[in-house]
């Protein structure tokens, strides 16, 4: 058969297309070419679904290390690390009481890199909790919750809750003694509204506590049902929720005009010229949009003097990647030094003594040791509510974007830290030395103990102190500074007491060396 001339041409074209396929694949994936010019850098960012969460240009203020300390990126990086390592662990983990513990042992001993991966997972989870809390503190102390960022502050609070939930649900999965009893306590904290309903005598009619516990455990006891629920929450529901919320959180940063910065940020940046900034707008924009129709309010740069933004690609991405690798470094280093704990197999008839929750819940556990409902649900809800209200109560505008900014400033923070640390120490010392209401009046009604206990007193003291600060400095921001600092101090003290000074039967000991042997 002879090929016609047309056929030969088609073949040639086919060959040429085949040869060009790799190049065309590359071009269709990266339309803008190498990001070497301002324009191609911009298209590189908004042509990529993931990078597009970032603005095309980043303000130089945002890139200063002291602006954020990289804490937000660190939280996200830690999440990414737990996500990857967690998925790897799922290859071997079996969510069944008979097999879970053995499968963790297998991961530990015979799965190649299994021990390291599990340790990294564990440490990244801890790093994430720390980073999220510090990130919140950073946002608070630089007033980053202020308009227009109120909504993102709320999303951030939700992210904090989901993060703690992720850590907590992961705690049960190894099915060791530590896990079993920490979850038993956790599930009963969920049931603690009964403390109120019982005292009011309405549990028979209205039992939110029992319902919460049942929902969490799927049974009366911590068993197979509970394990599968915690597993589902840990690997599916909560990560999805966290990813969705985080996407909103990131996207809102962009929509809210980037990170918070002081009003005079540009002026201050003008005094520290950056040698490696790129020229601004050297080419005509490739496309124009009806910006005026879409964007309301002031645009950042128009008629506003020198431009202090840099292309996000590569400046922001170097910073973000740097923090990611730093986080990874911290996690890997800790993972190599210290193994994730695995105690003996869960034994439902021998309570772990002391049964300690993960460290970041030990502050709660310390309060729970006085009243289950107040310590486990009441106070945390009050704190969360207080945090959620902050952006709506503090409508001031001065010193936004400044560390410790606001009336009172750094001295107020220092004073509040002192109060925040001293008050729980004093109350705890009193309660440990002299006992509490029940020891003095055994017949006291439970409602009184629920209402008046070290945890509620501490909260009340903090609230009173911050109200005093509001009056003294004539500013809601001063009150917020005082309250937030106090809560942080209380968290630190109670967590430290719960972690280091509580032994068997939750008795106070100066060191574990003094624990009685049983």
């Amino acid at each position: 058969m002879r090929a016609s001339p047309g056929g030969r041409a088609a073949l040639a074209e086919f060959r040429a297309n085949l040869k060009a396929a790799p190049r065309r694949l590359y071009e269709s994936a990266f339309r803008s070419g190498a990001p070497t010019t301002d324009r191609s850098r911009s298209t590189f960012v908004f042509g990529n679904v993931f990078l597009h969460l970032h603005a095309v240009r980043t303000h130089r203020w945002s890139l200063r290390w002291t602006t954020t300390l990289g804490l937000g990126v660190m939280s996200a990086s830690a999440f990414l690390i737990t996500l990857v390592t967690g998925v790897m662990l799922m290859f071997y983990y079996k969510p069944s009481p008979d097999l879970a513990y053995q499968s963790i042992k297998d991961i530990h001993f015979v799965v190649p890199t299994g021990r390291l991966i599990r340790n990294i997972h564990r440490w990244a989870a801890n790093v994430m909790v720390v980073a999220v809390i510090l990130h919140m503190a950073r946002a608070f102390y630089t007033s980053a919750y202020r308009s227009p960022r109120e909504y993102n502050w709320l999303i951030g609070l939700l992210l904090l809750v989901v993060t703690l939930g992720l850590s907590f649900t992961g705690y049960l999965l190894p099915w060791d003694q530590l896990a079993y009893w920490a979850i038993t306590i956790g599930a009963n904290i969920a049931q603690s509204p009964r403390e109120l309903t019982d005292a009011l005598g309405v549990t028979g009619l209205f039992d939110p506590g029992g319902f919460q516990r049942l929902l969490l455990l799927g049974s009366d006891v911590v068993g197979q049902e509970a394990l599968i629920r915690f597993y589902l929450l840990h690997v599916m529901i909560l990560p999805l929720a966290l990813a969705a919320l985080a996407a909103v959180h990131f996207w809102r940063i962009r929509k809210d005009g980037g990170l918070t910065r002081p009003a005079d940020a540009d002026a201050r940046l003008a005094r520290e010229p950056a040698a490696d900034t790129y020229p601004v707008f050297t080419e005509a924009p490739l496309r124009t949009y009806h910006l005026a129709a879409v964007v309301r309010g002031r645009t950042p740069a128009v008629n506003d003097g020198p431009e202090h933004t840099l292309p996000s690609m590569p400046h922001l991405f170097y910073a973000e990647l740097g923090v990611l690798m730093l986080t990874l470094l911290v996690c890997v280093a800790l993972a190599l030094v210290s193994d994730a704990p695995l105690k003996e197999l869960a034994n439902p008839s021998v309570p772990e003594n002391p049964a300690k929750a993960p460290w970041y819940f030990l502050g709660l556990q310390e309060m729970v040791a006085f009243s289950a409902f107040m310590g486990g649900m009441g106070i945390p809800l009050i704190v969360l509510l207080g945090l959620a209200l902050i952006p709506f109560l503090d409508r001031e505008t001065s010193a936004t974007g400044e560390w410790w900014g606001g009336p009172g400033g750094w001295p107020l923070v220092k004073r509040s830290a002192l109060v925040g640390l001293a008050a729980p120490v004093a109350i705890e010392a009193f309660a440990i030395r002299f006992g509490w209401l029940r020891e003095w009046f055994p017949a006291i009604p439970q409602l009184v103990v629920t209402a008046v206990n070290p945890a509620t007193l501490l909260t009340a003291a903090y609230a009173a102190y911050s109200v005093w600060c509001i009056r003294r400095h004539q500013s809601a921001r001063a009150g917020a500074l005082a309250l937030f600092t106090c809560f942080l101090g209380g968290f630190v003290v109670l967590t430290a007491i719960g972690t280091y000074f509580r032994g068997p039967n939750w008795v106070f000991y100066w060191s574990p060396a003094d624990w009685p042997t049983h």
Partner: protein
Amino acid sequence: MTVTPKPSRSRLDAEPVSRRDWLGLTSLGVTAGALLFGLVGLLRLPKAAVLSSPSKKFRVALPEGLPAGEAFVPPGRAVAVFRDARGVHAISITCTHLGCLVKPTAAGFECPCHGSRFAADGSVTKGPAPRPLPWLKVSVSGSEVTIDEGTAVASGTKEV
């Protein structure tokens, strides 16, 4: 045929919603209703109609020489059974605070988790436990005792 120009409206003005757009409103309403109903059904799923937990009633044989006032904890159960001259009684050993298992001691019960203490009759003497340990329903036939963990009885009720 003449075209009557509509009054011009800026693109930035809000578009008035027609009160007669019954089709749109109804369809949205029905969608919301259907999804809401489905959601309610979906939320019923995590709460099983019957729990997989073991029966709350069980029979147990007390050991022969159980001294009066000494607790016998049937293996795998969160109950302490006592026998004395006045009869048999059972007290739950699940702490009313946060569900740890309390330990029977000479003086009563001790919770290892947050230091609650209970007297021998289950009443709280110390610590955060909000309620006394409940006494459970028992019925005795010979040396066998049937205990119902699900039914609490008044403190002090003993069965012979």
